[in-house]
Protein backbone atom coordinates (compact mmCIF):
# COMPACT_ATOMS: atom_id res chain seq x y z
CA UNK A 1 0.00 0.00 0.00
CA UNK A 2 1.37 3.42 -0.86
CA UNK A 3 1.96 5.46 2.23
CA UNK A 4 0.08 8.69 1.95
CA UNK A 5 -3.39 9.11 0.60
CA UNK A 6 -2.06 11.07 -2.27
CA UNK A 7 0.45 8.41 -3.20
CA UNK A 8 -2.35 5.82 -3.36
CA UNK A 9 -4.41 8.14 -5.46
CA UNK A 10 -1.54 8.97 -7.80
CA UNK A 11 -1.05 5.26 -8.26
CA UNK A 12 -4.71 4.82 -9.18
CA UNK A 13 -5.03 7.91 -11.30
CA UNK A 14 -1.83 7.89 -13.33
CA UNK A 15 -1.47 10.63 -15.92
CA UNK A 16 -2.19 8.17 -18.73
CA UNK A 17 -5.58 7.50 -17.23
CA UNK A 18 -6.54 11.09 -16.73
CA UNK A 19 -5.37 11.77 -20.26
CA UNK A 20 -7.48 8.98 -21.79
CA UNK A 21 -10.41 10.12 -19.67
CA UNK A 22 -10.19 13.71 -20.88
CA UNK A 23 -9.25 12.75 -24.43
CA UNK A 24 -10.76 9.37 -25.17
CA UNK A 25 -9.42 7.61 -28.26
CA UNK A 26 -11.70 5.87 -30.76
CA UNK A 27 -14.97 7.37 -29.70
CA UNK A 28 -17.96 6.68 -31.91
CA UNK A 29 -19.87 3.91 -33.59
CA UNK A 30 -19.26 1.56 -36.46
CA UNK A 31 -21.81 0.52 -39.04
CA UNK A 32 -21.69 -1.65 -42.08
CA UNK A 33 -20.73 -5.26 -42.70
CA UNK A 34 -18.93 -7.12 -39.96
CA UNK A 35 -19.72 -4.48 -37.35
CA UNK A 36 -21.08 -5.74 -34.08
CA UNK A 37 -22.33 -3.47 -31.27
CA UNK A 38 -22.81 -4.32 -27.61
CA UNK A 39 -24.25 -2.20 -24.83
CA UNK A 40 -23.32 -2.88 -21.25
CA UNK A 41 -23.98 -1.28 -17.94
CA UNK A 42 -22.44 -1.53 -14.51
CA UNK A 43 -25.44 -2.02 -12.24
CA UNK A 44 -23.59 -0.91 -9.15
CA UNK A 45 -23.03 2.59 -10.46
CA UNK A 46 -24.89 3.14 -13.69
CA UNK A 47 -21.83 3.50 -15.92
CA UNK A 48 -22.69 2.64 -19.50
CA UNK A 49 -20.76 1.67 -22.58
CA UNK A 50 -21.64 1.01 -26.18
CA UNK A 51 -18.83 -0.77 -27.95
CA UNK A 52 -18.72 -1.38 -31.70
CA UNK A 53 -16.27 -3.86 -33.17
CA UNK A 54 -15.62 -4.72 -36.79
CA UNK A 55 -13.99 -8.08 -37.30
CA UNK A 56 -12.35 -8.78 -40.65
CA UNK A 57 -10.55 -12.00 -41.45
CA UNK A 58 -10.69 -12.94 -37.79
CA UNK A 59 -8.98 -9.71 -36.78
CA UNK A 60 -10.39 -6.79 -34.86
CA UNK A 61 -10.12 -4.33 -37.68
CA UNK A 62 -11.70 -1.47 -35.76
CA UNK A 63 -13.16 -0.72 -32.31
CA UNK A 64 -15.14 2.34 -31.25
CA UNK A 65 -16.92 3.18 -28.04
CA UNK A 66 -19.35 5.62 -26.55
CA UNK A 67 -20.38 5.81 -22.96
CA UNK A 68 -20.64 7.63 -19.73
CA UNK A 69 -18.71 6.77 -16.67
CA UNK A 70 -15.90 7.45 -14.34
CA UNK A 71 -12.31 8.06 -15.34
CA UNK A 72 -11.40 4.43 -14.73
CA UNK A 73 -14.13 2.93 -16.89
CA UNK A 74 -13.73 5.40 -19.73
CA UNK A 75 -9.94 5.39 -19.73
CA UNK A 76 -9.92 1.62 -19.62
CA UNK A 77 -12.24 1.44 -22.61
CA UNK A 78 -10.18 3.95 -24.50
CA UNK A 79 -6.93 2.10 -23.77
CA UNK A 80 -8.60 -1.15 -24.74
CA UNK A 81 -9.61 0.11 -28.17
CA UNK A 82 -6.01 1.03 -28.80
CA UNK A 83 -4.55 -2.16 -27.45
CA UNK A 84 -6.91 -4.47 -29.31
CA UNK A 85 -6.95 -2.96 -32.77
CA UNK A 86 -5.44 -5.44 -35.17
CA UNK A 87 -5.40 -8.41 -32.81
CA UNK A 88 -6.99 -11.72 -33.73
CA UNK A 89 -10.00 -12.80 -31.69
CA UNK A 90 -7.88 -15.21 -29.71
CA UNK A 91 -5.23 -12.65 -29.04
CA UNK A 92 -7.85 -10.19 -27.83
CA UNK A 93 -9.39 -12.76 -25.51
CA UNK A 94 -5.95 -13.60 -24.16
CA UNK A 95 -5.15 -9.94 -23.64
CA UNK A 96 -8.38 -9.55 -21.76
CA UNK A 97 -7.43 -12.45 -19.50
CA UNK A 98 -4.04 -10.88 -18.88
CA UNK A 99 -5.66 -7.57 -18.09
CA UNK A 100 -8.09 -9.12 -15.62
CA UNK A 101 -5.25 -11.03 -13.99
CA UNK A 102 -3.48 -7.73 -13.44
CA UNK A 103 -6.59 -6.29 -11.78
CA UNK A 104 -6.68 -9.31 -9.52
CA UNK A 105 -3.16 -8.40 -8.44
CA UNK A 106 -1.58 -11.17 -10.48
CA UNK A 107 -0.21 -11.49 -13.98
CA UNK A 108 2.59 -9.49 -15.54
CA UNK A 109 1.54 -5.86 -15.98
CA UNK A 110 4.82 -5.03 -17.66
CA UNK A 111 3.77 -7.12 -20.66
CA UNK A 112 0.57 -5.11 -21.07
CA UNK A 113 2.09 -1.86 -22.30
CA UNK A 114 0.00 1.22 -21.67
CA UNK A 115 -2.65 -0.95 -20.01
CA UNK A 116 -0.29 -1.29 -17.06
CA UNK A 117 -1.34 2.22 -16.12
CA UNK A 118 -4.45 0.57 -14.70
CA UNK A 119 -2.55 -1.75 -12.39
CA UNK A 120 -3.28 0.56 -9.44
CA UNK A 121 -6.92 -0.46 -9.67
CA UNK A 122 -6.02 -3.78 -8.05
CA UNK A 123 -5.72 -1.87 -4.77
CA UNK A 124 -9.36 -0.77 -5.03
CA UNK A 125 -11.56 -3.83 -5.45
CA UNK A 126 -14.78 -1.84 -5.91
CA UNK A 127 -13.27 -0.15 -8.93
CA UNK A 128 -12.39 -3.38 -10.71
CA UNK A 129 -15.89 -3.44 -12.20
CA UNK A 130 -15.25 0.00 -13.63
CA UNK A 131 -12.03 -1.08 -15.26
CA UNK A 132 -13.55 -4.20 -16.78
CA UNK A 133 -16.75 -2.71 -18.18
CA UNK A 134 -15.32 -2.12 -21.66
CA UNK A 135 -13.55 -5.47 -21.67
CA UNK A 136 -16.69 -7.35 -20.77
CA UNK A 137 -18.42 -5.59 -23.64
CA UNK A 138 -15.62 -6.77 -25.89
CA UNK A 139 -15.93 -10.38 -24.72
CA UNK A 140 -19.64 -10.20 -25.36
CA UNK A 141 -19.10 -8.74 -28.84
CA UNK A 142 -16.71 -11.57 -29.63
CA UNK A 143 -19.47 -13.98 -28.67
CA UNK A 144 -17.58 -15.21 -25.67
CA UNK A 145 -17.86 -15.53 -21.92
CA UNK A 146 -20.48 -14.63 -19.42
CA UNK A 147 -20.19 -10.89 -19.31
CA UNK A 148 -21.68 -9.10 -16.35
CA UNK A 149 -25.32 -8.65 -15.84
CA UNK A 150 -28.01 -9.82 -18.06
CA UNK A 151 -30.03 -12.07 -15.88
CA UNK A 152 -33.23 -11.23 -17.68
CA UNK A 153 -35.53 -8.39 -18.46
CA UNK A 154 -38.97 -7.22 -17.59
CA UNK A 155 -41.05 -4.77 -19.49
CA UNK A 156 -44.07 -3.47 -17.68
Amino acid at each position, binding site marked *: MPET*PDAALEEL*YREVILDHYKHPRNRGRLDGPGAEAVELQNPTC*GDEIRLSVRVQDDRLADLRFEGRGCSISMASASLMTEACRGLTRDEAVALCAGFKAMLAGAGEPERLGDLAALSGVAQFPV*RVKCATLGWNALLRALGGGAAAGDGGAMDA
Partner: protein
Amino acid sequence: MAAVAALPPKAAPFDPETVRADFPILERRVHDRPLVYLDNAATTQKPRAVLDAEDRFYRRHNANVHRAIHTLGNEATVAYEQAREAVGRHLGAADGRGVVFLRNATEALNLVAWAWARRRLRPGDEILLTPMEHHSNLVPWQMVARETGARLRFIPVGPDGALEMDALDRDGLLGPRTRVVAFAHCSNVLGTITPAEELCRRARAVGAVSVVDAAQSVPHAPVDVGRLGCDFLAFSGHKTYGPMGVGVLWGRPERLEAMEPLFGGGEMILKVELESATWNEVPWKFEAGTPNVAGAVGLAAACAYVRDLGQDRIAAHEAALTRLALDGLGDCPGVTIHGPGPGSPRGALVAWSADGVHPHDLAQYLDQEGIAIRAGHHCAQPLMRQLGVVATARASFGLYNTAAEVEALVGAVRRAREFFHA
Protein backbone atom coordinates in the same frame (compact mmCIF):
# COMPACT_ATOMS: atom_id res chain seq x y z
CA MET B 1 -41.82 16.29 8.80
CA ALA B 2 -40.49 19.53 7.43
CA ALA B 3 -36.96 18.87 8.49
CA VAL B 4 -35.52 22.22 7.61
CA ALA B 5 -38.57 24.44 7.60
CA ALA B 6 -39.67 24.88 11.18
CA LEU B 7 -37.01 24.55 13.81
CA PRO B 8 -37.42 26.26 17.15
CA PRO B 9 -36.12 23.46 19.35
CA LYS B 10 -37.67 23.48 22.77
CA ALA B 11 -34.75 22.11 24.69
CA ALA B 12 -31.11 23.12 24.53
CA PRO B 13 -29.53 22.79 21.10
CA PHE B 14 -28.08 19.45 20.39
CA ASP B 15 -24.34 18.92 20.71
CA PRO B 16 -23.19 16.01 18.54
CA GLU B 17 -19.87 15.78 20.34
CA THR B 18 -21.64 14.44 23.40
CA VAL B 19 -23.18 11.54 21.49
CA ARG B 20 -20.28 10.51 19.30
CA ALA B 21 -18.93 8.37 22.10
CA ASP B 22 -22.10 6.29 21.86
CA PHE B 23 -21.03 5.07 18.42
CA PRO B 24 -17.99 2.80 18.63
CA ILE B 25 -17.30 2.90 14.90
CA LEU B 26 -16.65 6.63 15.00
CA GLU B 27 -13.31 5.89 16.63
CA ARG B 28 -12.30 4.15 13.47
CA ARG B 29 -9.60 5.64 11.28
CA VAL B 30 -9.68 5.29 7.50
CA HIS B 31 -6.49 5.72 5.51
CA ASP B 32 -5.00 7.05 8.68
CA ARG B 33 -7.58 9.81 9.00
CA PRO B 34 -10.55 9.95 11.36
CA LEU B 35 -13.63 8.45 9.73
CA VAL B 36 -16.04 11.10 8.48
CA TYR B 37 -19.15 9.08 7.79
CA LEU B 38 -21.51 10.94 5.48
CA ASP B 39 -23.36 8.00 3.96
CA ASN B 40 -26.19 7.82 6.45
CA ALA B 41 -28.93 7.59 3.84
CA ALA B 42 -27.43 4.24 2.81
CA THR B 43 -27.17 2.97 6.34
CA THR B 44 -26.58 4.58 9.71
CA GLN B 45 -24.07 3.59 12.34
CA LYS B 46 -25.33 1.89 15.50
CA PRO B 47 -25.12 3.28 19.00
CA ARG B 48 -23.87 1.07 21.79
CA ALA B 49 -27.43 0.97 23.16
CA VAL B 50 -28.56 -0.93 20.08
CA LEU B 51 -25.60 -3.30 19.96
CA ASP B 52 -26.01 -3.99 23.65
CA ALA B 53 -29.75 -4.65 23.34
CA GLU B 54 -29.14 -7.28 20.67
CA ASP B 55 -26.24 -8.74 22.56
CA ARG B 56 -28.14 -8.90 25.83
CA PHE B 57 -30.99 -10.65 24.09
CA TYR B 58 -28.66 -13.35 22.81
CA ARG B 59 -26.77 -13.69 26.08
CA ARG B 60 -29.80 -13.82 28.35
CA HIS B 61 -33.09 -14.52 26.61
CA ASN B 62 -32.55 -16.06 23.22
CA ALA B 63 -35.36 -18.41 22.20
CA ASN B 64 -37.93 -18.77 19.51
CA VAL B 65 -41.14 -16.84 20.06
CA HIS B 66 -44.85 -17.44 20.36
CA ARG B 67 -44.91 -21.15 20.83
CA ALA B 68 -42.82 -21.85 23.86
CA ILE B 69 -43.89 -22.39 27.42
CA HIS B 70 -40.40 -22.31 28.85
CA THR B 71 -38.99 -19.22 30.50
CA LEU B 72 -36.64 -18.15 27.73
CA GLY B 73 -39.38 -18.60 25.14
CA ASN B 74 -41.68 -16.49 27.23
CA GLU B 75 -39.08 -13.79 27.74
CA ALA B 76 -38.26 -13.74 24.04
CA THR B 77 -41.94 -13.44 23.15
CA VAL B 78 -42.46 -10.61 25.58
CA ALA B 79 -39.36 -8.82 24.29
CA TYR B 80 -40.49 -9.22 20.70
CA GLU B 81 -44.03 -8.03 21.30
CA GLN B 82 -42.81 -5.13 23.41
CA ALA B 83 -40.57 -4.14 20.54
CA ARG B 84 -43.63 -4.17 18.30
CA GLU B 85 -45.50 -1.90 20.72
CA ALA B 86 -42.53 0.44 20.96
CA VAL B 87 -42.22 0.73 17.20
CA GLY B 88 -45.96 1.31 16.88
CA ARG B 89 -45.82 4.11 19.40
CA HIS B 90 -42.72 5.54 17.75
CA LEU B 91 -44.88 5.94 14.66
CA GLY B 92 -47.59 7.66 16.66
CA ALA B 93 -49.92 4.64 16.72
CA ALA B 94 -51.71 3.63 19.89
CA ASP B 95 -50.12 0.19 19.90
CA GLY B 96 -48.21 -2.33 17.83
CA ARG B 97 -51.11 -3.93 16.04
CA GLY B 98 -50.26 -2.40 12.70
CA VAL B 99 -46.55 -3.23 12.90
CA VAL B 100 -45.30 -6.07 10.71
CA PHE B 101 -41.63 -6.92 11.16
CA LEU B 102 -39.91 -7.78 7.89
CA ARG B 103 -36.37 -7.67 6.52
CA ASN B 104 -36.18 -4.11 5.26
CA ALA B 105 -38.23 -1.34 3.67
CA THR B 106 -37.95 -3.09 0.33
CA GLU B 107 -39.67 -6.19 1.61
CA ALA B 108 -42.34 -4.05 3.25
CA LEU B 109 -43.10 -2.25 -0.01
CA ASN B 110 -43.13 -5.51 -1.92
CA LEU B 111 -45.55 -6.99 0.57
CA VAL B 112 -48.06 -4.24 -0.15
CA ALA B 113 -47.50 -4.58 -3.88
CA TRP B 114 -47.81 -8.36 -3.93
CA ALA B 115 -50.29 -9.07 -1.18
CA TRP B 116 -52.52 -6.03 -1.49
CA ALA B 117 -52.25 -4.74 -5.03
CA ARG B 118 -51.72 -7.89 -7.03
CA ARG B 119 -54.95 -9.39 -5.72
CA ARG B 120 -57.03 -6.31 -6.33
CA LEU B 121 -55.82 -4.48 -9.41
CA ARG B 122 -57.47 -4.95 -12.78
CA PRO B 123 -56.55 -3.79 -16.26
CA GLY B 124 -57.10 -0.06 -16.47
CA ASP B 125 -56.51 0.54 -12.78
CA GLU B 126 -53.80 3.01 -12.03
CA ILE B 127 -50.86 3.19 -9.66
CA LEU B 128 -49.66 6.71 -9.04
CA LEU B 129 -45.96 7.12 -8.26
CA THR B 130 -43.29 9.76 -8.66
CA PRO B 131 -40.25 9.59 -10.92
CA MET B 132 -37.96 10.10 -7.95
CA GLU B 133 -38.84 6.83 -6.22
CA HIS B 134 -36.12 4.55 -4.99
CA HIS B 135 -36.14 1.36 -7.08
CA SER B 136 -37.66 -0.36 -4.06
CA ASN B 137 -40.81 1.71 -4.45
CA LEU B 138 -40.85 1.49 -8.23
CA VAL B 139 -39.85 -1.96 -9.42
CA PRO B 140 -42.43 -3.84 -7.27
CA TRP B 141 -45.16 -1.69 -8.81
CA GLN B 142 -43.82 -2.34 -12.29
CA MET B 143 -43.95 -6.07 -11.57
CA VAL B 144 -47.47 -5.92 -10.22
CA ALA B 145 -48.62 -3.66 -13.04
CA ARG B 146 -47.34 -6.18 -15.52
CA GLU B 147 -49.20 -9.02 -13.80
CA THR B 148 -52.48 -7.21 -13.39
CA GLY B 149 -52.62 -4.96 -16.43
CA ALA B 150 -52.65 -1.89 -14.24
CA ARG B 151 -50.97 1.26 -15.47
CA LEU B 152 -48.24 3.28 -13.80
CA ARG B 153 -48.56 7.05 -13.73
CA PHE B 154 -46.10 9.57 -12.39
CA ILE B 155 -46.48 12.93 -10.70
CA PRO B 156 -43.86 15.07 -12.42
CA VAL B 157 -40.95 16.47 -10.48
CA GLY B 158 -40.10 20.08 -11.29
CA PRO B 159 -36.62 21.53 -11.71
CA ASP B 160 -36.64 22.55 -8.04
CA GLY B 161 -37.17 18.93 -7.05
CA ALA B 162 -40.74 19.49 -5.89
CA LEU B 163 -43.69 17.40 -7.01
CA GLU B 164 -45.90 19.27 -9.44
CA MET B 165 -49.07 18.81 -7.49
CA ASP B 166 -51.08 20.81 -10.05
CA ALA B 167 -50.63 17.93 -12.43
CA LEU B 168 -52.86 15.73 -10.29
CA ASP B 169 -55.93 17.46 -11.65
CA ARG B 170 -54.49 19.12 -14.73
CA ASP B 171 -53.28 15.87 -16.24
CA GLY B 172 -55.92 13.70 -14.64
CA LEU B 173 -53.25 11.77 -12.76
CA LEU B 174 -55.49 11.12 -9.79
CA GLY B 175 -59.02 9.93 -10.29
CA PRO B 176 -61.43 7.06 -9.94
CA ARG B 177 -59.04 4.66 -11.65
CA THR B 178 -56.31 5.35 -9.13
CA ARG B 179 -56.02 2.41 -6.76
CA VAL B 180 -52.62 3.03 -5.19
CA VAL B 181 -50.68 6.23 -4.48
CA ALA B 182 -47.12 5.36 -3.45
CA PHE B 183 -44.35 7.86 -2.84
CA ALA B 184 -41.24 8.60 -0.83
CA HIS B 185 -41.78 10.84 2.15
CA CYS B 186 -38.28 12.16 1.54
CA SER B 187 -36.36 11.57 -1.68
CA ASN B 188 -33.06 9.80 -1.12
CA VAL B 189 -31.44 11.79 -3.93
CA LEU B 190 -32.98 15.23 -4.02
CA GLY B 191 -33.87 15.47 -0.37
CA THR B 192 -37.32 16.70 -1.39
CA ILE B 193 -39.93 16.40 1.35
CA THR B 194 -43.15 15.44 -0.36
CA PRO B 195 -46.56 16.77 0.74
CA ALA B 196 -47.41 13.44 2.29
CA GLU B 197 -50.50 14.46 4.21
CA GLU B 198 -52.01 16.02 1.15
CA LEU B 199 -51.21 13.02 -1.03
CA CYS B 200 -52.72 10.63 1.50
CA ARG B 201 -55.83 12.76 1.79
CA ARG B 202 -56.22 12.97 -1.96
CA ALA B 203 -55.66 9.23 -2.28
CA ARG B 204 -58.36 8.59 0.29
CA ALA B 205 -60.72 10.94 -1.49
CA VAL B 206 -60.62 8.79 -4.62
CA GLY B 207 -60.68 5.52 -2.70
CA ALA B 208 -57.03 4.65 -3.36
CA VAL B 209 -54.67 3.28 -0.73
CA SER B 210 -51.69 5.42 0.16
CA VAL B 211 -48.24 3.90 0.63
CA VAL B 212 -45.56 6.07 2.19
CA ASP B 213 -41.94 5.05 1.71
CA ALA B 214 -40.59 6.54 4.91
CA ALA B 215 -37.10 5.01 4.64
CA GLN B 216 -35.57 8.50 4.61
CA SER B 217 -37.98 10.30 6.92
CA VAL B 218 -38.34 8.07 9.98
CA PRO B 219 -34.60 8.37 10.74
CA HIS B 220 -34.69 12.15 10.85
CA ALA B 221 -37.88 13.48 12.38
CA PRO B 222 -41.01 12.34 14.21
CA VAL B 223 -43.35 10.59 11.80
CA ASP B 224 -46.95 10.08 12.85
CA VAL B 225 -49.05 7.68 10.84
CA GLY B 226 -52.24 9.20 12.22
CA ARG B 227 -51.26 12.70 11.19
CA LEU B 228 -50.10 11.49 7.79
CA GLY B 229 -53.34 9.62 7.28
CA CYS B 230 -51.59 6.90 5.32
CA ASP B 231 -52.73 3.32 4.82
CA PHE B 232 -49.26 1.81 4.70
CA LEU B 233 -45.83 3.06 5.69
CA ALA B 234 -42.48 1.34 5.24
CA PHE B 235 -39.05 1.91 6.71
CA SER B 236 -35.79 0.08 7.42
CA GLY B 237 -34.23 -0.44 10.83
CA HIS B 238 -30.68 -0.16 9.57
CA LYS B 239 -31.23 3.37 8.26
CA THR B 240 -32.50 4.60 11.60
CA TYR B 241 -29.68 3.52 13.92
CA GLY B 242 -31.12 0.00 14.27
CA PRO B 243 -29.72 -3.35 13.17
CA MET B 244 -29.68 -4.77 9.68
CA GLY B 245 -32.19 -7.45 8.82
CA VAL B 246 -35.23 -5.77 10.28
CA GLY B 247 -37.68 -3.49 8.53
CA VAL B 248 -41.22 -2.46 9.21
CA LEU B 249 -44.45 -2.30 7.34
CA TRP B 250 -46.99 -0.35 9.30
CA GLY B 251 -50.50 -0.88 8.02
CA ARG B 252 -53.79 0.52 9.13
CA PRO B 253 -55.23 -2.50 10.93
CA GLU B 254 -58.39 -2.62 8.77
CA ARG B 255 -56.19 -2.73 5.70
CA LEU B 256 -54.04 -5.47 7.14
CA GLU B 257 -57.15 -7.44 8.09
CA ALA B 258 -58.38 -7.31 4.54
CA MET B 259 -55.01 -8.24 3.07
CA GLU B 260 -54.08 -11.84 2.34
CA PRO B 261 -50.71 -13.07 3.55
CA LEU B 262 -47.98 -13.45 0.96
CA PHE B 263 -45.80 -16.09 2.56
CA GLY B 264 -47.02 -19.28 4.18
CA GLY B 265 -45.35 -21.09 7.03
CA GLY B 266 -44.90 -21.26 10.74
CA GLU B 267 -46.31 -18.50 12.99
CA MET B 268 -48.72 -17.14 10.41
CA ILE B 269 -51.28 -19.93 10.54
CA LEU B 270 -54.20 -20.79 12.74
CA LYS B 271 -55.11 -24.25 11.57
CA VAL B 272 -53.44 -26.34 8.93
CA GLU B 273 -54.77 -29.39 7.16
CA LEU B 274 -52.93 -31.22 4.45
CA GLU B 275 -54.82 -29.37 1.74
CA SER B 276 -55.76 -26.10 3.37
CA ALA B 277 -55.01 -23.63 6.11
CA THR B 278 -56.51 -20.70 7.97
CA TRP B 279 -54.59 -17.64 9.00
CA ASN B 280 -53.55 -16.23 12.30
CA GLU B 281 -54.54 -12.73 13.33
CA VAL B 282 -53.00 -9.45 12.21
CA PRO B 283 -50.09 -8.69 12.24
CA TRP B 284 -48.75 -12.21 12.77
CA LYS B 285 -50.31 -13.57 9.63
CA PHE B 286 -47.70 -11.63 7.65
CA GLU B 287 -44.75 -12.92 9.63
CA ALA B 288 -44.12 -16.40 8.31
CA GLY B 289 -41.31 -18.27 9.97
CA THR B 290 -39.06 -17.33 12.83
CA PRO B 291 -38.75 -13.56 13.00
CA ASN B 292 -35.59 -11.58 13.66
CA VAL B 293 -36.34 -11.20 17.36
CA ALA B 294 -32.97 -9.72 18.25
CA GLY B 295 -33.33 -7.32 15.34
CA ALA B 296 -36.72 -6.13 16.51
CA VAL B 297 -35.36 -5.66 20.02
CA GLY B 298 -32.45 -3.69 18.58
CA LEU B 299 -34.78 -1.52 16.53
CA ALA B 300 -36.87 -0.73 19.59
CA ALA B 301 -33.66 0.29 21.35
CA ALA B 302 -32.83 2.58 18.42
CA CYS B 303 -36.25 4.22 18.64
CA ALA B 304 -35.75 4.77 22.36
CA TYR B 305 -32.30 6.19 21.71
CA VAL B 306 -33.44 8.92 19.33
CA ARG B 307 -36.50 9.71 21.45
CA ASP B 308 -34.29 10.16 24.48
CA LEU B 309 -32.03 12.53 22.57
CA GLY B 310 -35.07 14.39 21.27
CA GLN B 311 -36.15 13.92 17.70
CA ASP B 312 -36.84 17.62 17.20
CA ARG B 313 -33.39 18.56 18.43
CA ILE B 314 -31.79 16.00 16.15
CA ALA B 315 -33.82 17.33 13.23
CA ALA B 316 -32.71 20.89 13.96
CA HIS B 317 -29.09 19.82 14.19
CA GLU B 318 -29.22 17.90 10.94
CA ALA B 319 -30.98 20.78 9.23
CA ALA B 320 -28.16 23.08 10.27
CA LEU B 321 -25.58 20.65 8.84
CA THR B 322 -27.55 20.40 5.63
CA ARG B 323 -27.67 24.16 5.29
CA LEU B 324 -23.94 24.34 5.87
CA ALA B 325 -23.32 21.73 3.18
CA LEU B 326 -25.63 23.47 0.73
CA ASP B 327 -23.81 26.73 1.25
CA GLY B 328 -20.32 25.27 1.22
CA LEU B 329 -20.77 23.00 -1.79
CA GLY B 330 -22.79 25.65 -3.59
CA ASP B 331 -19.75 27.91 -3.43
CA CYS B 332 -17.42 25.32 -4.95
CA PRO B 333 -16.62 26.06 -8.57
CA GLY B 334 -18.21 23.66 -11.03
CA VAL B 335 -20.62 22.16 -8.50
CA THR B 336 -24.33 21.87 -9.30
CA ILE B 337 -26.58 20.94 -6.39
CA HIS B 338 -29.67 18.88 -7.17
CA GLY B 339 -32.98 19.28 -5.42
CA PRO B 340 -34.76 22.03 -3.55
CA GLY B 341 -32.97 25.34 -3.22
CA PRO B 342 -32.28 27.09 0.07
CA GLY B 343 -35.43 27.88 2.01
CA SER B 344 -37.44 24.87 0.80
CA PRO B 345 -37.95 21.92 3.09
CA ARG B 346 -35.26 19.33 2.60
CA GLY B 347 -34.12 16.13 4.20
CA ALA B 348 -30.69 15.74 5.72
CA LEU B 349 -28.83 15.05 2.50
CA VAL B 350 -27.31 16.84 -0.46
CA ALA B 351 -26.57 15.39 -3.89
CA TRP B 352 -24.51 17.22 -6.45
CA SER B 353 -22.57 16.96 -9.69
CA ALA B 354 -19.14 18.45 -10.20
CA ASP B 355 -17.99 19.43 -13.68
CA GLY B 356 -15.15 17.30 -14.89
CA VAL B 357 -15.02 15.05 -11.84
CA HIS B 358 -17.10 11.91 -12.06
CA PRO B 359 -18.82 11.10 -8.76
CA HIS B 360 -16.91 7.80 -8.48
CA ASP B 361 -13.65 9.56 -8.82
CA LEU B 362 -14.75 12.15 -6.31
CA ALA B 363 -15.85 9.49 -3.82
CA GLN B 364 -12.55 7.71 -4.26
CA TYR B 365 -10.67 10.90 -3.65
CA LEU B 366 -12.69 11.73 -0.54
CA ASP B 367 -12.22 8.23 0.81
CA GLN B 368 -8.50 8.80 0.84
CA GLU B 369 -9.19 11.63 3.26
CA GLY B 370 -11.38 9.38 5.41
CA ILE B 371 -14.62 10.88 4.14
CA ALA B 372 -17.34 8.42 3.17
CA ILE B 373 -19.91 9.70 0.71
CA ARG B 374 -21.95 7.83 -1.84
CA ALA B 375 -21.53 8.08 -5.58
CA GLY B 376 -23.85 6.45 -8.03
CA HIS B 377 -27.44 6.28 -9.10
CA HIS B 378 -28.68 5.88 -5.52
CA CYS B 379 -31.14 3.27 -6.77
CA ALA B 380 -33.00 5.98 -8.62
CA GLN B 381 -32.00 5.54 -12.24
CA PRO B 382 -35.10 7.15 -13.74
CA LEU B 383 -34.47 10.29 -11.72
CA MET B 384 -30.82 10.29 -12.80
CA ARG B 385 -32.01 10.28 -16.39
CA GLN B 386 -34.28 13.24 -15.71
CA LEU B 387 -31.34 15.06 -14.11
CA GLY B 388 -29.30 14.21 -17.19
CA VAL B 389 -26.57 12.39 -15.29
CA VAL B 390 -25.58 8.77 -14.78
CA ALA B 391 -24.58 9.32 -11.21
CA THR B 392 -24.28 11.97 -8.55
CA ALA B 393 -22.28 12.37 -5.40
CA ARG B 394 -24.32 12.45 -2.19
CA ALA B 395 -23.51 13.38 1.39
CA SER B 396 -26.15 12.45 3.95
CA PHE B 397 -26.12 13.31 7.60
CA GLY B 398 -26.82 11.60 10.87
CA LEU B 399 -27.17 12.81 14.41
CA TYR B 400 -23.44 12.31 15.13
CA ASN B 401 -22.15 14.44 12.27
CA THR B 402 -20.55 17.77 13.03
CA ALA B 403 -20.08 21.10 11.35
CA ALA B 404 -16.34 20.38 11.21
CA GLU B 405 -17.07 17.24 9.20
CA VAL B 406 -19.13 19.21 6.72
CA GLU B 407 -16.28 21.68 6.38
CA ALA B 408 -13.85 18.84 5.78
CA LEU B 409 -16.15 17.58 3.03
CA VAL B 410 -16.33 20.95 1.33
CA GLY B 411 -12.57 21.45 1.49
CA ALA B 412 -11.94 18.01 0.02
CA VAL B 413 -14.40 18.57 -2.80
CA ARG B 414 -12.44 21.67 -3.73
CA ARG B 415 -9.13 19.84 -3.62
CA ALA B 416 -10.52 17.00 -5.76
CA ARG B 417 -11.20 19.46 -8.52
CA GLU B 418 -7.54 20.41 -8.58
CA PHE B 419 -6.40 16.82 -8.43
CA PHE B 420 -8.45 15.89 -11.47
CA HIS B 421 -7.44 19.08 -13.31
CA ALA B 422 -11.13 19.87 -13.70
